C-alpha cells in the first residue's frame, strides 16, 4: 500500500527538465554532483586543449617512470614513458562516452519495454518478464567476455552488450510504476476519450515515469563506468584507446606496484572515483528529492542535534493559556500563538 503511494507520489512530481535541474542545483549535495559532472564533461570535451601532451602520439613520450614533476605533474609510465596526466585527461573521454551513451540507450530500451509490459499486460507483459528472468540468471561479465571474444574487442560491442543485457532492472521498476499509473484517473479518462494505446503510452504514461527514468539513468551511468573500467582492466576494451581501466591494468602488469609508482595507480583510480561519485551523487539526490520521506527522517535527526533549549522553552511557554490568552483583565495582545520557524 505505502509503496504504491510512494510510487504515485514519485509519478506526480512532474515538472520540466529545467525545473528539475534547478531542484538539483538547490540541493547542496546535488550541486556538488552537478559541478563535478560538468567539470568532467568539460575535461573530456577539451582534452586536446587541456592535456599537456598527446598520449596517443608516440613522438611525445618522455623518459620512462618519471616521478611527478612540473613537466609531468603525475609522472610518466614505466613501460612507455607516456605522460600520466594526459592519459588521465584523455581517459575521461572513454569513461564518460561509454557511461553516458550506454546509460541513455539503456534508459530508452528499458523504459520502452517497461511501459509496454506494464501497460499492455497479457502476452507482451509475460514475454518481457520471462526475458527478464532469463537475463537475470545469465552471468553478465562472463557473457560480455564471450561476446567480445566472438564479435571483436571494441567499445561498440561493449555498449551493445551492456544495453542488450542491462535493461532488465529499469524495465522492472518502470513496469511496477506503470501498473499503478494505469489505474489512475487521468489514464482512465484518456482511455474513455478514445485515445489510442500508443498515444496513452507516449503522452500520458511515459511522462509520468520520466523522473524515475532520469534517476535510474544517472545511477546506471555510474554503474556502467565502473563496469567499463573493469572490462578495460581485464583487457577487453578497445585495445587502441586509452581508458582508466586499461591504465590500471598497465600499471599492474608494468610493475607499478613493484617499483612503488603509486601515482600511476592513484591517478586512474581517482578518475574513476570522481566520475562515478559525481553521477552517483546526482542519482542519490534525485532519489531524495522524489522520496522525501527518507530525507525528512534524516534531516529531523540532524535538526534535533541543533535544537536550542531556550527556544524550546519559549515554544512550550507560548502554549500555556497564560501566554496565549493573556491575563484575564488585560487586553493587550500577546501574539505568541503564532508559530515561528526555527532560527
Amino acid at each position, binding site marked *: 500500500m505505502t509503496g504504491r503511494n510512494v510510487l504515485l507520489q514519485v509519478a506526480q512530481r512532474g515538472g520540466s527538465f529545467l525545473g528539475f535541474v534547478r531542484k538539483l542545483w538547490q540541493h547542496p549535495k546535488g550541486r556538488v554532483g552537478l559541478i563535478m559532472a560538468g567539470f568532467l564533461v568539460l575535461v573530456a570535451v577539451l582534452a586536446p586543449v587541456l592535456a599537456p601532451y598527446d598520449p596517443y602520439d608516440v613522438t611525445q613520450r618522455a623518459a620512462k617512470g618519471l616521478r611527478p614533476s612540473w613537466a609531468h605533474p603525475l609522472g610518466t609510465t614505466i613501460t612507455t614513458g607516456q605522460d600520466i596526466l594526459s592519459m588521465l585527461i584523455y581517459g575521461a573521454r572513454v569513461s564518460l562516452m561509454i557511461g553516458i551513451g550506454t546509460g541513455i540507450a539503456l534508459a530508452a530500451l528499458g523504459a520502452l519495454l517497461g511501459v509496454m509490459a506494464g501497460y499492455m499486460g497479457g502476452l507482451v507483459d509475460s514475454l518481457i518478464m520471462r526475458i527478464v528472468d532469463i537475463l537475470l540468471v545469465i552471468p553478465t561479465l562472463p557473457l560480455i567476455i564471450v561476446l567480445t571474444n566472438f564479435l571483436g574487442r571494441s567499445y561498440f560491442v561493449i555498449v551493445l552488450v551492456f544495453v542488450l543485457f542491462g535493461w532488465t532492472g529499469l524495465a522492472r521498476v518502470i513496469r511496477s510504476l506503470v501498473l499503478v499509473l494505469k489505474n489512475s484517473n487521468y489514464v482512465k479518462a484518456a482511455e474513455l476519450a478514445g485515445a489510442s494505446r500508443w498515444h496513452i503510452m507516449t503522452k500520458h504514461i511515459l511522462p509520468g515515469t520520466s523522473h524515475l527514468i532520469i534517476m535510474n539513468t544517472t545511477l546506471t551511468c555510474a554503474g556502467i563506468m565502473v563496469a567499463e573500467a573493469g572490462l578495460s582492466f581485464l583487457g577487453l576494451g578497445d585495445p587502441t584507446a586509452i581508458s582508466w581501466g586499461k591504465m590500471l591494468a598497465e600499471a599492474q602488469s608494468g610493475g607499478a606496484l613493484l617499483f612503488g609508482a603509486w601515482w600511476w595507480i592513484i591517478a586512474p583510480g581517482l578518475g574513476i572515483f570522481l566520475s562515478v561519485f559525481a553521477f552517483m551523487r546526482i542519482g542519490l539526490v534525485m532519489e531524495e528529492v522524489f522520496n522525501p520521506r527518507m530525507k*525528512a*527522517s534524516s*534531516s*529531523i*535527526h540532524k*535538526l*534535533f542535534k541543533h*535544537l536550542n533549549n531556550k527556544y*524550546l522553552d519559549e*515554544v*512550550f511557554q507560548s*502554549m*500555556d*493559556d497564560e501566554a*496565549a*490568552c*493573556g491575563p*484575564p483583565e488585560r*487586553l493587550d*495582545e500577546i*501574539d505568541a*500563538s*503564532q*508559530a*515561528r*520557524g*526555527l532560527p
Partner: protein
Amino acid sequence: MTEAMLNLRNLKVAFPCPAGMIRAVEGIDLSVKRGECVALVGESGCGKSVTALAVMRLLRTPPSISRVDKLELDGVDLTDWTDRQMRDLRGKDMAMIFQDAMTALNPVMTVGRQIEEVYQRHTRMARREARRETIRALELVGVPEARSRVKSYAHELSGGLRQRVLIALAFACLPKLIIADEPTTALDVTIQAQVLDLLKAMQKEHGVSTLLITHDLSVVANMADTVYVMYSGKIVERAAARDVFQKPRHPYTQGLMASVPRLSDRRQMFVQIPDTVPHPMHKPTGCYFHPRCSRAADECRRRMPRLETLESHREVRCWFPLSNPQEAGS
C-alpha cells in the same frame, strides 16, 4: 467512583521540523474517572492520537518533544518514571487498542504468539500456560475456533477478527486503563457495531476505565460518559456526553454535531464546517477556530479564549459560547 484513574495535566507535544515547529498538542488537561469512558473527539490532525501515545509514553524523541506537568495513573504519579518503569506498566496497567489491526499486528508472527508475549512479559506464566490464557482471551472476545486461530497470521483473519485480536491483546492483563485509538474506523459499518458492542461489554464487565479517541460521534454516543472536544491541539469543550449532544456550547462542537446526518433531520442536507483544521505549524492568532467560525468577532481574532467553567462539569473555550441549541442552529 470519584477518584480519577487517569489524571493528565498540561500535556504539550511539539514536532520540530526544518520548516518550523509543529505544535501538535498545546497544553491539555484530561482526567478519566474509575470505570468511566471518556471520549476525546476531534477532526483528524487535531492531536488526538498524539495525546493517546503521549499518555502511554510511547512518543519518541526524536521526532517529538513533549512536556507534561503531571501524569497520574490510579493515584500513582508517573510523571518522572523512567522508561524501564514505564515498560513494566505498559500492557499491564495501561493498554492500547490501535486503529488499523492489519498494520498494528506483526505480519510474520502468529496472532497467538503476539498475545502470549503480553502474558509472558507481565506474568510469570510459562509458554504453555500463556498459550492457554491466550486461547481463553480470544474466546472471550468472540473469536470462533480460538484454538486453531492462535496459529493464524494477521492476513489470514477478517478485519473484524483482527480487531477482536487487538482487543484481546489489550485486555490480556486486565489493565486499569484502556486507550482505544479509533478502534472501529478501519472496519465495515456492520462490523463496527459488533466490535463496539464487544468493547463496551468488555469495558463494563471488567470496569476498565477507557480513553476513547475518535472522530466518529456515533461511537461517542454509544460509549462515552464524558466528552472532550479537541481542536488544533487545545481542548475547546468538556462536558458530559449527553450535554454535548443536546446542547453543545462551543461553535465547533455544534458544527461537529450538525455534520452528523440524523434521520429526524428535516433539512436533508449535511451541515459542514467550512475549510479544514489549521496547519499545525501555522495556526491563526486568537481563537484557533475563528477562521471557520460563523460567530467570530474581533475579540476572537485577537485573543485566544480560556477554557472556562460554564456550568458544573462543563468547560468551554470560547468568547461567545452558544447559550442553547436553537439559537446556534440558525
